[in-house]
């Protein structure tokens, strides 16, 4: 457990000296961030943390205190940390969780105790429909978003048959269900693999033998790296497509050229043409010496959302603060952003293509897959 008290004020002297002063009325807040900083999934948590901290620092609001702790990707540890932050540290807002299963374990208990939760990643359907809560704000995406948009895109492209591939666990099934909801063509085969599987020779052989025109897959983290490398070496030439998670900046470096040309759906890309994003990409590179990832962008947006609401309302006044969050009055790095009735994003989902810029493998936006996309769970949500 990392008890690192990162008080934003400490690193702000330089900024204020340069003449950036905080808006007079912005109030403070105590923020608890539970994220994954050790073990295999640490890269995602580190990006969310770094993006979030950068937003807080740039705001100039010296009264935001952030307590960062490591969930070790274990739900029971995360639950303990949430208890600690609520009971001992008396935080006002929690954020930071990366994984759906940890969010499902922590968020209901936290919001039930009257705290706010801002999700910088993971949007399980369990928290969007019947399980929604007035204090739960998802600033990243609902699990289905990228997949429904990809389904639309496949329709537009006239794809006749797809091969679907995902790990056999709830998020995997959610993603595939999201794609099937909008996709109108035929499904050639639907294969669910063991979570954490590293060898995909058998699945690639099935893909080769199938009559599919396109492979749509969701394999996050190391699974995606393994699949893409093996697929590229197999000689199968069916195009592949998937949600952005397997083609994130942190992962593309490890896949390399094998990913070139692959299309993936995302709400953000580093080449999105808006002022907020340009500044963010540049500042992040200057500060941390690496290209920002999807997760860093989401962490940054989560920070911006919090800062914007603090400028409008006192966090101790829960109703006013909630109303301020609902307004989402900040310049999201993804461009247009607002909340749907169940506090999930309404945003454009872009289609990206993996390209090479010099030596760096990265993404480029090639079009919009779904405009003003929102999720289908709004109807089930009663706040």
């Amino acid at each position, binding site marked *: 457990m990392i008890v690192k008290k990162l008080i934003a004020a400490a690193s702000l002297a330089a900024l204020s000296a340069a003449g950036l002063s905080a808006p007079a009325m912005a109030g403070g807040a105590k923020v608890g961030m539970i994220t994954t900083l050790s073990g295999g999934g640490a890269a995602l948590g*580190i990006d969310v943390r770094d993006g979030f901290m950068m937003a807080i620092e740039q705001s100039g609001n010296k009264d935001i205190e952030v307590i960062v702790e490591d969930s070790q990707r274990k739900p029971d540890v995360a639950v303990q940390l949430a208890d600690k932050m609520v009971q001992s540290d008396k935080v006002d807002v929690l954020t930071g969780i990366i994984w759906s299963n940890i969010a499902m374990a922590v968020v209901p208990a936290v919001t039930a105790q009257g705290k706010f939760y801002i999700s910088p990643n993971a949007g399980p359907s369990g928290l969007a429909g019947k399980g929604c809560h007035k204090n739960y704000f998802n600033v990243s995406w609902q699990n289905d978003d990228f997949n429904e948009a990809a389904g639309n895109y496949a329709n537009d492209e006239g794809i006749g048959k797809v091969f679907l591939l995902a790990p056999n666990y709830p998020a995997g099934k959610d993603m595939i269900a999201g794609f099937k909801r909008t996709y109108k063509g035929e499904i050639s085969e639907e294969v669910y693999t063991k979570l954490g599987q590293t060898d995909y020779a058998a699945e690639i052989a099935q893909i080769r033998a199938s009559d599919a025109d396109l492979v749509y897959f969701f394999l996050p983290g190391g699974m995606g790296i393994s699949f893409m490398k093996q697929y590229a070496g197999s000689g199968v030439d069916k195009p592949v497509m998937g949600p952005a998670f397997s083609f994130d900046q942190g992962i593309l470096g*490890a896949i390399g050229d094998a990913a070139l040309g692959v299309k993936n759906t995302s709400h953000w890309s580093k080449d999105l043409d808006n002022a907020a994003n340009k500044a963010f990409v540049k500042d992040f590179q200057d500060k941390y010496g690496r290209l920002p990832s999807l997760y860093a962008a989401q962490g940054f947006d989560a920070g911006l959302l919090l800062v914007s609401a603090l400028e409008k309302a006192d966090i101790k006044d829960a109703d006013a603060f909630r109303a301020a969050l609902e307004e989402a009055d900040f310049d999201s790095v993804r461009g247009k952003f607002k909340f749907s009735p169940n506090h999930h994003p309404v945003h454009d989902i872009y289609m990206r293509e993996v390209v090479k810029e010099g030596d760096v493998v990265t993404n480029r936006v090639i079009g919009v897959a779904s405009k003003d996309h929102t999720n289908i769970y709004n109807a089930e949500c009663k706040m």
Partner: protein
Amino acid sequence: MSLLLFIEQVLNGLQFGVMLFLMAAGLTLIFGVMGLINLAHGSLYMIGAFAAAAVSAATGSFLLGLAASLAAAAAAGALIEVVVIRRLYDKDHLDQVLATFALILIFSEGTRWVFGSFPLYLDVPSYLAGSVTLPGGIEYPLYRLAIIAIGLLVAAGLFALIAWTRIGIQIRAGESDREMIAVLGVNISALYTIVFALGAALAGFAGALIGAIQSVQVGMGEPVLILAFVVIVIGGIGSIKGALVGAILVGLTDTLGRTLLPVAFDTFMTASAANAVGSALASMSIYILMAVLLVFKPTGLFGSA
């Protein structure tokens, strides 16, 4: 499923088995000679992969990367043998499990500290990229064929080492009577360091070879560790032959399980239910195989009590 696809899947199963053998060979060698349960085997696998990724990124040569993986893993192996492992030989399995579990923690976070949290890039060399057409029209990745060849070479090399070389004779003597070969003037502690370093080098080599088509990241060794244990337990711990047979058995069971089970259930269930049950059962298949085998052969296929 067509016959051709079935044959290809059998080939995939064999290939996966050979990969598993590469992972498991060092583990079973170390157990056979020193009687040590080494949970840190997966960490040595990871070290090999990271060394290969770092060196081939710096030099552009995959072969140098492979050499680095052997050297780094052997060096790490020799180091932990001298500092930690040799104090564990006369302790019970429980202490060995705990101590080598502690080594996993140190190696995993140490690697993250040195290389950061992001996965590294390691790709197959251009001369092994792409696929070839086998007789019968099966298109198969060249690199996987190379893995099969290397795995079989490693197996042959290990058999030869143990059967014909001086060190092999000492290893066999050590397996059957530890005190006696010490009395005969063999420097047993040097022998153990060499065997451990050899086992570690094999793990590192496997990490580099397989890392090229998988993900080189912290934690990559842990699933491998479990699989390697399944393999050597099925084969009978300490037996190289057992490891080879066990690996191929596990490779075939896993591959055919995940391709055939959903199809098999499809014949008497709805498609989605068949898919759910089939995939769930497939992910458990190798553990079921291991448990059933041990119930009937409590010391594995080629193990001695």
